């Protein structure tokens, strides 16, 4: 069983968490974004066979949504951290 480190509660069993999908920022210009941009945001996924930045939710715990960097080939977690609205967007260049 994979374990995850909640930025708030520490290392816990994954059964306490819910997976929230790959990190996929909303179109920046929310009101002005073209329809095609919204469709991409809603449906298109990288689904890459490698490192992915993704959302997790500590459902049976503190209720925090946070980000995880995980290698989807072997489920090894490199880091977990709290999302900040004004922090820089996580870079996809880390995916190797």
């Amino acid at each position, binding site marked *: *069983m994979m374990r995850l480190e909640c930025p708030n509660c520490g290392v816990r069993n*994954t*059964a306490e968490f*819910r*997976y929230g*999908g*790959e990190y996929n920022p909303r179109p920046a210009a929310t009101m002005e974004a073209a329809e*095609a941009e919204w*469709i*991409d945001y*809603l*449906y*298109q*996924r*990288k*689904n*890459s*066979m490698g490192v*992915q930045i*993704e959302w997790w939710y500590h459902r049976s715990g503190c209720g925090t949504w946070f980000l995880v960097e995980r290698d*989807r*080939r*072997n*489920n090894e977690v490199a880091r977990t951290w709290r999302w900040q609205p004004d922090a820089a967007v996580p870079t996809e260049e880390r995916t190797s």
Partner: protein
Amino acid sequence: MSLKLLRQGLGARPPRMWHDRPLKDHYDVVIIGGGAHGLACAYYLARDHGITNVAIVDKSYIGAGGSGRNTAIIRSNYLTPEGVQFYDASVKLYEGLAQDLDFNVMFSQRGHLTLAHNDGSVRTMRRRAEVNKLQGVDSRLVFPDELSRICPQLDLSDSPRFPILGALYHPPGGIIRHDAVVWGYARGADQRGVDIHQYTEVTGIDVANGTATGVRTSRGNVSAGIVVSATAGWASNVAAMVDLQLPLDTFPLQACVTEPLKPFLDVVVVSGSLHVYVSQSDRGELVMGASVDPYTSYSMAGSLDFLEGLAGHVLELMPFLSKARILRQWAGLCEMPPDFSPLMGITPVDNFLLDAGWGTYGFKASPICGKTMAELIATRRTPDLLHPFRLSRFAEYDQVGEKGAASVGH
């Protein structure tokens, strides 16, 4: 006993059903993925359309992916008319497949039950039954009195946590030998001149002016008139080679078998509410599966969580199995689209075709996928059966919602 059988039994090497051939510089059609879908496509291209300059390339042996990892259930009792028509065409092809291929695929139409444990499920089963009937598919709602005759092994009392209220009964549904389907199609394609290249990994796809022109492989480069991706869980990675993103998320799906037991279960039993399906193979093993893992991954490692959850749910249905032992478990990769319907046909890249998004329901559609993809390649026109599953449906707000009938995980 035939003379041939006697001779082979006495030590002469049996003829190989498909052959290793050198990789040519050019193929009219290159199909990425040597599973039941890709092999069926090659078979129907050669048999129905006379297109034989076709290559199958697979990074492993044929049938190593979803085709050899599914639980071999065949049915057509889906929720949308588009889905029912498509899967029903597939069941009809499966019915004649052993004759077509001259190869025993051991298709056993033993009947298929989808149990309902609450009023909402009963309502959904009623809707499915009526949609099925309108499409000419044998499917009906049955209640515990009739259910006890179809499947007396089920605990139909009111003692389980979720008592069984009724079921959708689909007599043409059943199970098949999935490896035999792969081998039969491979042999049929090979006999008609298709090249099957195992252990040949595609590393890139050449695109010029928005048109796919060939594939690069671990054994050399090949130019191609048409490139087809039929790679089950890995489609997003193949599509990335032509800079295309797909609406897919890849999840592992686990399954397991018990030790062989005396034959006692002659119907396929599925419960959406309990996330479980179980059938008994001809060898006597109970083949059991559940819903996909709780998070996406390309790792096919098994988990104890899965076994514990599954065992608990199977015992709700058949408590007498509490002493049965699990023989082995495994996982396959399922790429889930948002509406639980496949992504088929043309893409924004010319001559690059998709047979993808087959989630947890791909094996049962293999023959019709092969046949319709072959028709698309030969005629350059999308067959009516494929139209609802086009990739552009997401941008057109025209999804085909099959979640209620395609998965047990909801």
